[in-house]
């Protein structure tokens, strides 16, 4: 009898062990939804059980009702916020990538601008919004600029880190081939910083979104932030909560998109020996 035959018969005799539920993939996929559903269920029960007034804490059912009733305006506002976030985020990618390459590839530029960048990044951006409104008026511009200002920093820092930490020996290999500075960046620095870049996008999209909403809330006439403000000033609390719910759904969607892009683009970084990339948040 061969080895494989022995194994086969052993396999046949072995009783089928059931895999524990916690290892089941489908179960894991649905777990987050079950948690969300559970929260809404408890919430509904608490509101009903303690007879909480609607203007204090509306029940999930009345929130969903308000959401359905005002679906048109909610969608318009969400679209507006999505647009300002996307534009600000796109500018942040361009500026963050370019500035990150510059800062990461030259120790002189690094030394020159890093303190100023840190100083800039510690300014609370809420404080800047009124100034932006003075400069650009009420409208989309303050939201776009705020989301840009918040989100370019994490991108810049991560790209710069990726480029600045290229192994000195690899630089020697390149320079001994006669490579110029741009060739070293193109062949080694940039590809190497891509995992850092894509990881930073998750952080950046989140803060870009927050930036838009903050600007709309502080002084805007459009967007989901302003919608929320108007609803609560009219004591339409279920509607304010509905807007809040829309906000968090948008946040989840944008995060999921960027994290999917990250996984697609930088598979090599998570399979190698030094796999996990930790991201410096802005």
């Amino acid at each position, binding site marked *: 009898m061969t080895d494989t035959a022995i194994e086969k018969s052993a396999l046949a005799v072995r009783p089928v062990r059931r895999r524990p539920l916690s290892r089941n993939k489908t179960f894991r996929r649905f777990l987050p939804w079950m948690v969300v559903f559970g929260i809404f269920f408890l919430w509904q029960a608490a509101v009903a059980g303690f007879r909480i007034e609607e203007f204090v804490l509306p029940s999930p059912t009345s929130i969903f009702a308000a959401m359905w009733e005002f679906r048109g305006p909610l969608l318009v506002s969400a679209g507006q916020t999505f647009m300002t976030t996307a534009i600000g985020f796109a500018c942040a990618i361009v500026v963050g990538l370019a500035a990150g390459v510059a800062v990461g590839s030259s120790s002189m530029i690094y030394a020159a601008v890093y303190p100023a960048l840190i100083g800039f990044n510690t300014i609370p951006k809420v404080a800047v919004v009124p100034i932006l409104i003075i400069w650009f008026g009420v409208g989309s511009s303050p939201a776009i600029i705020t989301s840009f200002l918040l989100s370019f920093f994490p991108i810049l820092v991560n790209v710069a880190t990726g480029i600045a930490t290229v*192994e000195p*020996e*690899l630089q*020697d*290999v*390149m*320079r*001994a*081939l*006669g*490579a110029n500075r741009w*060739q070293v960046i193109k*062949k*080694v620095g940039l*590809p*190497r910083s*891509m995992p850092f870049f894509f990881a930073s996008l998750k952080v950046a999209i989140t803060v870009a979104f927050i930036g838009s909403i903050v600007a709309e809330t502080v002084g805007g006439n459009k967007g989901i932030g302003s919608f929320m403000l108007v609803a609560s000033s009219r004591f339409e609390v279920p509607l304010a909560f509905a807007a809040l719910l829309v906000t968090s759904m948008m946040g989840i969607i944008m995060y999921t998109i960027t994290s999917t892009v990250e996984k697609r683009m930088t598979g*090599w*970084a998570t*399979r*190698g*020996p030094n796999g996990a990339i930790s991201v410096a948040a802005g």
Partner: protein
Amino acid sequence: MIPTDTGSKNFVEMHRVSLRYGEDGDGTLALEDTSMRVDRGEFVAVVGPSGCGKSTLMKVVTGLWPATKGGVIVNSKEVDRPLSITGMAFQNPTLLPWRTTIDNVMLPLEIVEPHATLMKRDRAAYEAKAMDLLALVGLKGFENKFPWELSGGMQQRASLCRALIHEPALLMLDEPFGALDMFTREELWLSLQDLWLARRPTVILVTHDLREAVFLADRILVMSARPGKIIAERTIDLPRPRTLESSYDPYAVNLVHELRQHISAARETV
């Protein structure tokens, strides 16, 4: 500054080179008054206690780091910038993890002229060349694997191919086998010898393994403790191609023994 003797067959010459790290003159003095020469096509090994300035010597010869005093001549020209005719390999294989083995090996071709221009027209020919080189070191069939799919020894072989693909006139190897186990190391000695016999580049190999130096080199330079300078020199008269057995014959064993004494003497003078 230095008389350039174009008539000599010396390919590399160091003239009383000193190197102090740091800008304000109070950094480490890594090399002091070091002179040496290497013939065209010669295989030279540099041995010495750790921290004595062997890697620094490599950086000076390739122009990656300017000498504080003295001068370096390579291929009848004084070195005042990084040379572009060098292939380098280090203890760490430094392969690019996002590239396959063959793309890693072909990296120099994307930079060094005339290959960079020629390759745009005839990539297939260069690819075939890279495949041949990989086959020569026993990496046939691994061309499209990524570095993390290779063992340490295989990565180091690929790194050697990368150092050689553009047919550099000067090959600089800084402890390339230092991180490998003995059996893998010996296999790689044979691969390196085959590569050298096939191409005949000028090689400077830094190593702390004396058997390795005796097996591979035509000549061995012994460095003193820091600040480093060449304190002894031995020519190895063993026929090529050498076999692993030849590194155990009495002549080689005596040489290793003698070099070891030089180095322990060098360490005691610290």
